[in-house]
């Protein structure tokens, strides 16, 4: 990696923060949505922990990693929506006619999403601890944040692929729905053995289930390598596939 490429990535991250800092209230929806879902689902489904199969009696602890990942997913999808807006406005052309390598242009967008995802994650975690979710330990928190960053990157690659393909913000629902389905079609609401019918099958094979479980371990007990490495493998796999797809989409914008 050359010095210029790193500078390009940093500059694009720097620009991306304008969307949050220079538009009044822009950060609110991204923070509010996962928080409302966290508090709402906790109030609604909180008594599910009475079912045999749950290893905790704190549904808040069970749910908070999912809500944090949901926030990360939405942040990643928003990066795709913003990219579609940039394409519509012609801004992407400005980047594409420069000699900066395409992967660096993409990395700037994706990394910006990873960093931005820390904002909703931090807020949701704070709310969760306020209402009594278990403290996962410093290790558990670090794992959660690492997974947040990687999940936001996965979502951003997916959403960017769609943005570069469709070149319109009309594709936004597809970006958001896809990310939501990926994150929630897992053991999000209940342990695998309690999931019903099709969702149990999907969750069993959805790589995101490993990620949810990896983020969740500290909140339900102690962290272990056995529950961490599957999350790393799953995230690495999704990142390489979706990263390659989005890079391919970036190179095909001239077709």
């Amino acid at each position, binding site marked *: 990696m050359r010095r210029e490429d790193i*500078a390009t990535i940093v500059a694009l991250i720097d620009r991306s923060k*304008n969307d949050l800092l*220079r538009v009044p209230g822009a950060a609110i929806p991204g923070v509010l949505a996962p928080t409302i879902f966290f508090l709402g689902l906790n109030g609604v489904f909180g008594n599910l922990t009475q079912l045999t199969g749950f290893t905790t009696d704190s549904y808040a602890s069970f749910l908070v990693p999912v809500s944090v990942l949901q926030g990360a997913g939405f942040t990643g999808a928003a990066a795709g929506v913003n990219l579609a807006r940039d394409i519509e406005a012609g*801004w*992407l052309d400005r980047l594409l006619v420069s*000699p900066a390598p395409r992967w660096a242009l993409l990395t700037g967008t994706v990394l910006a999403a990873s960093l931005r995802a820390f904002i909703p994650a931090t807020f949701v975690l704070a709310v969760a601890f306020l209402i009594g979710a278990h403290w996962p330990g410093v290790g558990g928190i670090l794992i959660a944040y690492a997974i947040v960053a990687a999940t936001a990157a996965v979502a951003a690659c997916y959403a960017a692929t769609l943005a570069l393909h469709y070149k319109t913000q009309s594709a936004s629902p597809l970006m958001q729905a896809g990310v939501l389905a990926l994150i929630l079609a897992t053991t999000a609401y209940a342990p695998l053995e309690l999931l019903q019918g099709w969702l149990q099958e999907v969750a069993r094979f959805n790589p995101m289930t490993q990620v949810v479980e990896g983020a969740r371990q500290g909140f339900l007990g102690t962290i272990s390598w056995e529950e961490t490495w599957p999350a790393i493998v799953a995230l690495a796999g999704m990142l390489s596939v979706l990263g390659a797809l989005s890079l391919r989409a970036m190179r095909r914008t*001239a077709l």
Partner: protein
Amino acid sequence: MKAIVVEGLERAFGDVLAVRGVDLSVDEGEIYGFLGPNGAGKTTTVRMLTTLLLPTGGRASVAGYDVVGEAHAVRASIGVALQEAALDPLMTGRELIRLQATLHGLPAAEGRRRADELLERVDLVEAADRRVGTYSGGMQRRLDLAASLVHRPRVLFLDEPTTGLDPVSRKTIWEEVRELNEDGTTVFLTTQYLEEADQLADNVGIIDSGAIVAEATPDALKAEIGNPHIELQLEEGSIADAEAVCTGIGKLMPPKDGRTVLLEVERGAGDIPRVVRALDEAGIEVASLELVKPTLDDVFVAKTGYHLEKQDPTASSAPVDDG
């Protein structure tokens, strides 16, 4: 050395051939005016030359590099200001130029220095730290132009740089383009304004329906159309008398109204004294007399059969007072 060489360039979108076999060449240091109405294929051609769009046929090279095979080298050599001035309204002007410098691999310190220089050059120093969203149309175009110059490109592409601008802003951009060209930058300029091509371009290519219909210097194109003519408006007296007087000097053209005589003359301005003397001797009073040279619009009409724009400022006509 050629700055741009285009051979049989084609671009199809599905079944529609937007650009159908364009050939052109631009010398280094030249300003090339690419003239045509909306939808003629100007922007599609520029997008192919700037590596934003792949051709579906033919080939093109810019600054000596193939736009498909050596796209990266092309990008490093060109500056581009596209028609839909793609500026981020949330950034400041200075931030935009610095970002552009970074994209072109300039070290941070040099990027800062270039930003200062360029903002000065396009007269945006005071607005430099305001958000682009607050800029007027003319300021945005000037900023876009400045940003495209950050890496001192050898070839500059300007896609309709003055469309929608007021006459003053337009002149400012023209002056800037001339200066750049004097510094040795090759400029490829698309425009739908005849006056713009006439004012700036060393060579003009006229594109219509995806194909080049004429290419030469503005003067050569106009000469192709024929001789200039004198337009006479009478104070009083009959058109027929005036026409009778003029008939020996040049070739009468069909009059456009009851008070005007149109006379095609071979020598242009050199024929004016003869006309004035003859009218004076016949006692015919003249309200105004104008020498009208063929315009690029005439060229355009001759080549395509329709007018390019409704009101073309008659930049190349030379009014002469009757005194």
